[in-house]
């Protein structure tokens, strides 16, 4: 088989139960090449189980996952050759230096001789660990250990990366550095599925998100798409030099405005908006002599999307 088109990672209706607990229930989504997808959900939502299924560490009770067209059920070895998985509890060996750790995994992935040494050097350079290669892992900071784990994940040059909570426990600088590394990898055409509890982090990093709760995928797509689905009407914040009462009366009488409420010294209103309608509304405000000083469409951020979609119930 050879891969032609289609998503790099395709999750097709997978379910997984542990005893009576249904950890994942008919989950489906896909990640394209060069795309970073954020995978978000409350604790115990099924993120790690889904990711472990994608990584062939668990097998689904139903459904299947395809990586570059290879099934995790039928061809797990082919999947593993294309996959880089960074688990939330990464492993590190005692009495081992950074170089020895990477050399071991390079051997474990079948890299030989000069190719292995070259590849270890490349990932050390990419992750900025080259100067620390003789240091023992036990003495590394959490951020450096995360970098080391990412370096290990990249050793066999996988086309798909699955990163489970890579930014957990990192300081702000390490987080920014990790984000840059992940972006650089996506720019190289790798498909990346990344989970995190730090939603602002994901919002800046990801092209799309998948929201999961109680094992069920609640929404997938870009944050903008999901927002549109959640809020079909555009929400606009407007502030004028004229008194708020006048603005409120104007909006209440305008036929295009669906509802409004006072907020932050101005008004927030919703209307069925096209850019033309928004422009016409702004022109009407000016014509009515209300002297608008702020007229800004309000978009949901990832945190609000997440809260809107999930109920916060644990299973």
């Amino acid at each position, binding site marked *: 088989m050879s891969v032609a088109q289609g998503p790099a990672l395709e999750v097709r209706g997978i379910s997984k139960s542990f005893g009576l607990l249904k950890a994942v229930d008919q989950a489906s989504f896909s990640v394209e090449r060069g795309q970073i997808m954020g995978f978000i959900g409350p604790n115990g939502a099924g993120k790690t189980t889904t990711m472990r299924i994608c990584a062939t560490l668990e097998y689904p009770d139903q459904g299947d996952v395809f990586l570059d067209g290879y099934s995790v059920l039928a061809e797990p070895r082919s999947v593993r050759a294309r996959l880089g998985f960074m688990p939330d509890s990464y*492993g590190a060996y005692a009495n081992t230096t950074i170089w*020895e750790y990477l050399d071991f995994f390079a051997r474990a992935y079948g890299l030989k001789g000069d190719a292995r040494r070259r590849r270890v*050097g490349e990932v050390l350079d990419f992750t900025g660990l080259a100067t620390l290669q003789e240091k023992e892992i036990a003495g590394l900071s959490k951020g450096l250990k995360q970098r080391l784990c990412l370096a290990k994940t990249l050793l066999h040059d996988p086309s798909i990366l699955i990163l489970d909570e890579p930014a957990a426990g990192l300081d702000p600088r390490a987080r920014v550095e990790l984000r840059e590394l992940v972006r650089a990898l996506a720019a190289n055409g790798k498909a990346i599925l990344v989970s995190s509890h730090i939603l602002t982090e994901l919002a800046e990093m990801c092209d799309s998100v998948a929201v999961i709760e109680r094992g069920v995928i609640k929404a997938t797509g870009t944050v903008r798409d999901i927002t549109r689905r959640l809020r079909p009407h555009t929400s606009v914040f407007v502030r004028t030099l004229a008194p708020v009462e006048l603005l409120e009366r104007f909006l209440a009488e305008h036929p295009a405005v669906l509802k409004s409420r006072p907020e932050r010294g101005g008004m927030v209103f919703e209307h069925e908006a096209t850019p033309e309608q928004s422009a016409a509304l702004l022109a009407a405000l000016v014509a009515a002599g209300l002297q608008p000083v702020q007229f800004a469409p309000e978009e949901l951020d990832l945190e609000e999307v997440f809260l809107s979609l999930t109920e916060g119930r644990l299973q």
Partner: protein
Amino acid sequence: MSSGASAFPDRLNPILVKELRSALRGRYFRFLFPLTLLIATAIAVVLLVNLDAHLHAFAGRDFFQAMFGCLLVALIGLVPFSAFLSMGNEWDEHTYDLLVLSRLEARQIVLGKLGSVLVEAFLYLCAFVPFLSFAFLLRGIDLTSIVLLVAGAVVACVSASAIALMLSSVSRLRVVRVILMVALAAVLFGCALGGIVFVDEYARDPVAFDQAEHWIALTITLALIALPGLLSIAAAASLVAHAEENASTTPRVVVTALLLLLLAPCVWMQYENPSSNMPMMLGVVLSVGIALCDLFFVTEPETLTRHVRARVPSSPWRALLAAPFLPGGGRGVLLLLLHFALIHAALGWMVAVYVGVYPGHSNTDVRNTHLAVLVFQIYLFVYLALPSTIVGRRLQRAGVRVATRVLIPIGALLSLFLPALAGFLLRSEAWMEMRHPLSAPWVAFDCAWRHGVDGPTLGALIAGGVALALVLPRLVRALDELRRAARERARPAPAAAGVVDGA
């Protein structure tokens, strides 16, 4: 570039490379290796200082015993323990998943770990060579004895290390591993102590090894020491393998191969020196041994995982032929029956050899060998197949599986001894002496072997038939699952999105 960049060739097992790097730098080896040598040196100095001139002829022997004792502690105590910790670290350090995702196979992981502890053993051995050579120069112990005892210690070290690796792979729960570690430490201590006592006895009255029988006995002894190790390697590899993957076929094949390997020399020995008792003893011993191995297969969960189902031979006939070697309790019962049949085939040949050599021999016991072994096997079949069939689907749960595997041998022993206890209370002499229908040795040896089909033998045969009838639906289900899996595989799969057939 690291200084260690080219220290290890590419062809070496990656686990071995990693373990050696880590172990030689680790505290466990760096502390214990010099400590062992220090203790051995101290003992050597004390012995030499107190060397009695009158007993000069035995000085070498005493010196050897002391040094070999130290070596035994290292080889049978410290090295296997190191193997146990090494495998346990993979679970504790969360590195197991990373290994599974690499191209390493479970077998490579186990053999790599075993290889690294053997290098450790080799270092101990090298360190003790001067002491053992000095013992030889002091006289009182011959070179053959030294070499054979060291070889025996090395085989025991390999076997004990493999068992330690297997035990360490049993559970990822730390508390379980701590319990197993304590048990292992106690057993290793006992083995080391037993080894020291054996060497003491042997050194006083060494075997000359001037007859072929001596070498055969030595080979069999070494094989018996190595056998649990080989089985443990197969078991450890299956325990380390991914839970969904087929971890059963390799051990099944290994056990079958070992059975054939054990049968072959016995058949040859019977050919060289026909014996009337040998077939019976062999049949019973091998049946018990194989039943203990098959206990694990018979108590496996019944259904195939999706991953394994996708790999069942697509031809129904090939799937059927492979059935005893595929995972699942029902198919484990088929393997048990196959193993019993292989034993009977070997027995048939051995009995024929005996009867051929001694055609006029009137001893009918030999002709009853098949019947006696069959009766014995019926008991084993009932103990293994019936409880596991009753537990059925609940074997899917790990706890039930472990409990079943523990309770079956206990139940078998209780069925043997409880009537004896009842006989003691009821003052029944026959029962007290184990002459009761639940006593397999009595029914097989005293009834079937000596008298052919008499009352108790007939009862055992009927019980076997009933047990087989009860287990039959399980066997049919096991085969039917394979047939369905083969049919699913034969059906063309819908193409995955984004994938086209290559040229």
